[in-house]
C-alpha cells in the first residue's frame, strides 16, 4: 500500500518535470523556427547566428546565465520564478541543435520552391506557412528527439541550482525527488523512481515523438511501415550523426549538396556579391587580426595593472582547464576502448543488432545526472572518490554518442563491404586490419566530436556536486582542481569575474580543438570515404 502511494507520488513528480520539459521544448521550437529560418534566408544574419550557436552548443550552458536566472527568480514570485528559471535553463540546452536542423532544412530547400513563392506571389506569412515551416518540421521533430535527451540530462541539475549563497529547488520534480531519496538512504524507492523515470522516457518516445515523426515524414516516404523498428533506433542515432556533421559543414558545403542546377540558379543571384566579399575579406582579415592582437595586448596590460586579481584568476583557470582536459580525454580514451569492440560486434558480427540497440537506447535514456547521487554515495569512502565520480559521469555522458553514431553511419555502408568480408573470409586480425579499423572511421569521428562536447558539458556536474539545495545534510563530491568545479564554485560564491574568465578560457580551448583537430580530421576522413 505504501509502495503504491509512493509510486503515485513519484509519478506526480515526474509529471511535473515533464511539464517543464514540454514547456521548454515548445519554446525551443518557436525560437528555432524564427532563428533558423532567419539564418538560412539572410546572408548577414547567417554570419552572426551560425558561429554564435556553434559555440553555445559546445559550452556548459548552465554556467552561462546566472544573471538571467537571477532576474527570473527575483522578478517572479516564489516557485513561479524558480520554475521559469528551470524552464529557461532547459531551453538553453535544447534549442541549439533544433536551430541547426531548421537552418539546414531551409538551406537545402530546392531553389525552385522559392521561385514558386515568387511566381505565385506568396506573402510573408504564406511563405512561412506553405514553404518554410513545413520544410523545417521533419528536421525539427528529428532534432527534438535529441534535444529531449539532452534536456533530460540538464533537467535534474536545473531543478536544483544555486545563486550566490542562496540555494533553490523546485517543489515537485523528479530530479529533486531522486536526489532526496538517494541521500536519505532510501535505495528501494530511489530505484523505483528510476524505473518510473524510464517508463516516462519510453512512453514519451512512443506516444509523443513517434506519432509526430510519422505525421511529418508521411509525404517523404511512400512505404515506411515495414521498417518501423529501425526507424525508432536510427531516429536517435541519425540525429546524433546530423549534429556532428553540421558542426563541420560550413554553409558552402551545404550549398554544394543542393543539386547542381539549383546551385547555378542561386549562384546567378548571389555569386557576384560573394566574390567581391571574398577578396575584400582576405585583406581585411589579416589587417584586422594584427590590429586586434595589438589592441588586445594593450587592453590586457591595462586591465592587469588595474586589477591584479585577473592574472591570478587566469592562472587558476588555466590550471583548472589543464586538469579537466586530462580528465575528459582520459575518459574519452576509455570510452573508445570500450565502444570500439562493442561497435565491431554490433556492426559486423552480431545477428541481434536491433535487440541490442533497443537495450542500449533504454540504458542511454537514463541521463547520467540522475545516477549522480547514487554514484556519489556508492563511491564515498574510496580513495579518489571524487575523481572516480567525475570519471563515471564523463564516461556515461560520452559513450552513447560514439556507439549510436557508428551504428548510424554503418547503416549507409554499402552492402558490398559485408560481401567482401564473406568472400575473402576476413576474420580476426585481418578483419581488424582491413575492415573494422577503417570502415567505422567516419562514424567514429563524428561521434567523437559530440562525445567530447558532451563530456565538456557534463564537467560542470561531474566535477562538483553538492546537496545544500535540497537537504540539511551536506554531501559534497568535489575534485581538487577542474574547470567545471571552478565554474561551479565561482558562480556559487558570486565571483562573476572569475567565472567569466574561466568560461572564456574554456571557450577558446574548445574553438582551438575544433579548428585544429576535429575539422581537419573530419575533412581528411570525408575526402577518403566520399
Amino acid at each position, binding site marked *: 500500500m505504501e509502495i503504491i502511494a509512493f509510486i503515485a507520488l513519484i509519478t506526480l513528480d515526474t509529471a511535473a518535470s515533464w511539464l517543464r520539459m514540454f514547456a521548454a521544448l515548445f519554446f525551443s521550437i518557436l525560437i528555432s523556427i524564427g532563428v533558423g529560418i532567419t539564418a538560412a534566408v539572410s546572408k548577414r544574419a547567417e554570419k552572426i547566428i551560425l558561429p554564435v550557436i556553434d559555440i553555445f552548443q559546445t559550452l556548459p550552458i548552465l554556467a552561462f546565465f546566472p544573471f538571467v536566472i537571477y532576474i527570473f527568480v527575483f522578478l517572479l514570485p516564489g516557485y513561479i520564478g524558480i520554475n521559469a528559471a528551470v524552464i529557461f535553463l532547459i531551453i538553453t540546452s535544447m534549442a541549439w541543435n533544433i536551430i541547426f536542423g531548421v537552418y539546414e532544412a531551409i538551406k537545402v530547400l*530546392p531553389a525552385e520552391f522559392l521561385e514558386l513563392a515568387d511566381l505565385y*506571389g506568396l506573402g510573408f506569412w504564406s511563405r512561412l506557412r506553405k*514553404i518554410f515551416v513545413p520544410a523545417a518540421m521533419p528536421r525539427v521533430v528529428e532534432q527534438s528527439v535529441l534535444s529531449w535527451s539532452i534536456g533530460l540530462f540538464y533537467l535534474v541539475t536545473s531543478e536544483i541550482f544555486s545563486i550566490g549563497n542562496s540555494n533553490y529547488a523546485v517543489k515537485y520534480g523528479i530530479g529533486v525527488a531522486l536526489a532526496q531519496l538517494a541521500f536519505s538512504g532510501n535505495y528501494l524507492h530511489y530505484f523505483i523512481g528510476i524505473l518510473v523515470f524510464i517508463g516516462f522516457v519510453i512512453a514519451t518516445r512512443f506516444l509523443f515523438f513517434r506519432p509526430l515523426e510519422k505525421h511529418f515524414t508521411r509525404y517523404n516516404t*511512400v512505404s515506411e511501415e515495414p521498417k518501423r523498428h529501425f526507424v525508432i533506433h536510427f531516429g536517435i542515432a541519425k540525429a546524433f550523426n546530423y549534429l556532428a556533421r553540421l558542426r563541420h559543414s560550413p554553409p558552402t558545403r551545404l550549398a554544394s549538396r543542393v543539386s547542381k542546377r539549383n546551385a547555378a*540558379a542561386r549562384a546567378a543571384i548571389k555569386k557576384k556579391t560573394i566574390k567581391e566579399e571574398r577578396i575584400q575579406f582576405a585583406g581585411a582579415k589579416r589587417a584586422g587580426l594584427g590590429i586586434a592582437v595589438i589592441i588586445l595586448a594593450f587592453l590586457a596590460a591595462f586591465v592587469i595593472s588595474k586589477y591584479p586579481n585577473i592574472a591570478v584568476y587566469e592562472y587558476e583557470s588555466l590550471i583548472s582547464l589543464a586538469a579537466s582536459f586530462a580528465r575528459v580525454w582520459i575518459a574519452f580514451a576509455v570510452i573508445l576502448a570500450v565502444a570500439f569492440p562493442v561497435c565491431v560486434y554490433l556492426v559486423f558480427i552480431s545477428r541481434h543488432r536491433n535487440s541490442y540497440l533497443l537495450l542500449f537506447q533504454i540504458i542511454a535514456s537514463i541521463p547520467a545526472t540522475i545516477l549522480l547521487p547514487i554514484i556519489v554515495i556508492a563511491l564515498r569512502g574510496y580513495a579518489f572518490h571524487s575523481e572516480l565520480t567525475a570519471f563515471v559521469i564523463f564516461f556515461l555522458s560520452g559513450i552513447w554518442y560514439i556507439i549510436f553514431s557508428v551504428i548510424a553511419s554503418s547503416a549507409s555502408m554499402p552492402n558490398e563491404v559485408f560481401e567482401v568480408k564473406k568472400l575473402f573470409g576476413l576474420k580476426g586480425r585481418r578483419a581488424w586490419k582491413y575492415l573494422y579499423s577503417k570502415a567505422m572511421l567516419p562514424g567514429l569521428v563524428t561521434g567523437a566530436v559530440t562525445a567530447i562536447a558532451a563530456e565538456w558539458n557534463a564537467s560542470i556536474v561531474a566535477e562538483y556536486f553538492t546537496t545544500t539545495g535540497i537537504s540539511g545534510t551536506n554531501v559534497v563530491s568535489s575534485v581538487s582542481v577542474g574547470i567545471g568545479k571552478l565554474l561551479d564554485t565561482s558562480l556559487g560564491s558570486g565571483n562573476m569575474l572569475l567565472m567569466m574568465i574561466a568560461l572564456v578560457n574554456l571557450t577558446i580551448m574548445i574553438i582551438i580543438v575544433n579548428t585544429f583537430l576535429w575539422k581537419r580530421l573530419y575533412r581528411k576522413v570525408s575526402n577518403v570515404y566520399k
Partner: protein
Amino acid sequence: MRDVVLSARNIVFSFGDSPEQRIIDGVSFDARKNEFVSLIGPSGCGKSTLLRILAGLIDPVSGEVLYNGKRLDKPTSELSFVFQDFALLPWLTNIENVEMGLDPKIGDEEKRSRALATLKKMGLENVADYYPNALSGGMKQRVGIARAIISNPHVLLMDEPFSSLDELTANALRGDVVYMLRNKDISVNSVIMVTHNVEEAVEMSDRIIVLTNKPTKVKQEIKLGMKYPRNRHDKEFINMVDRIYEALTRK
C-alpha cells in the same frame, strides 16, 4: 504577321562586371500569339536562366522583357512556369499543389473544384489527395502542368519539362501537351520551351531558336511549317532534325 505576345529585348546577364563573364549576351526574340517557340542549345548554356528572366524571377543586368508591349519585371499570373524537376511541394497533396496556382483570394471551395477539374483534364483526379512522392515522374509533371495552367495563363514557359522523364513517358506527355494546345483545351496560346532535345523541339515547335554556348546568343531562328501531329519517321521531320543539328554544331 501575328501579334507579338512576349518579347525579349537585348537581354544581358552576367555574374561579374567584365564582358567575359557574361552568361547571356544580348538575346532578342519574339513569341507570337498561337505560337510554340523552342529555345535549343547545349547543356549549361544559360537557357534556364534566360527563361527565368522571361518569367520575371531573375532581373537581367540590362535589356527588358515586354509582355503585350508592357515592361515585365516581376512574375504575373498571365505567364506560367513548368519546372524541369516538377518543384512540387512534398508536404502538400497533389490537389493542394495545384491550388497554389490560383489567386489566394479565391474561396477554398472554388479553389478545390477548379483544381479538381484541372487535375481531371490531366487524367489525375484519382490521385488528387495523394502526396506527390507517391506518384511516378510522369504523373508528377502532369501535376506540375496542372498547377501551371489552372490560372488560365496566356503564356506557358517550360524549362526542359520532359528531360527528367523516361523516353516513353515523355513521348506520351509531349503528345498530350501538343493536343491540348492545338485543340484550345487550355487558355495558353503561346509557349516558350527550353530544351536540348532536338527531336522534341522539332516535334512540338512552330519556331526553333538555336542558341550558342558561353555566352548565350541567338545563332539562328528556324521556322517550321509542318502539320501536327508530326511523325518522327517522315522525311520532312528527319530533314528538319538534321538541319537543327547542323545549326547547333556549326561554328
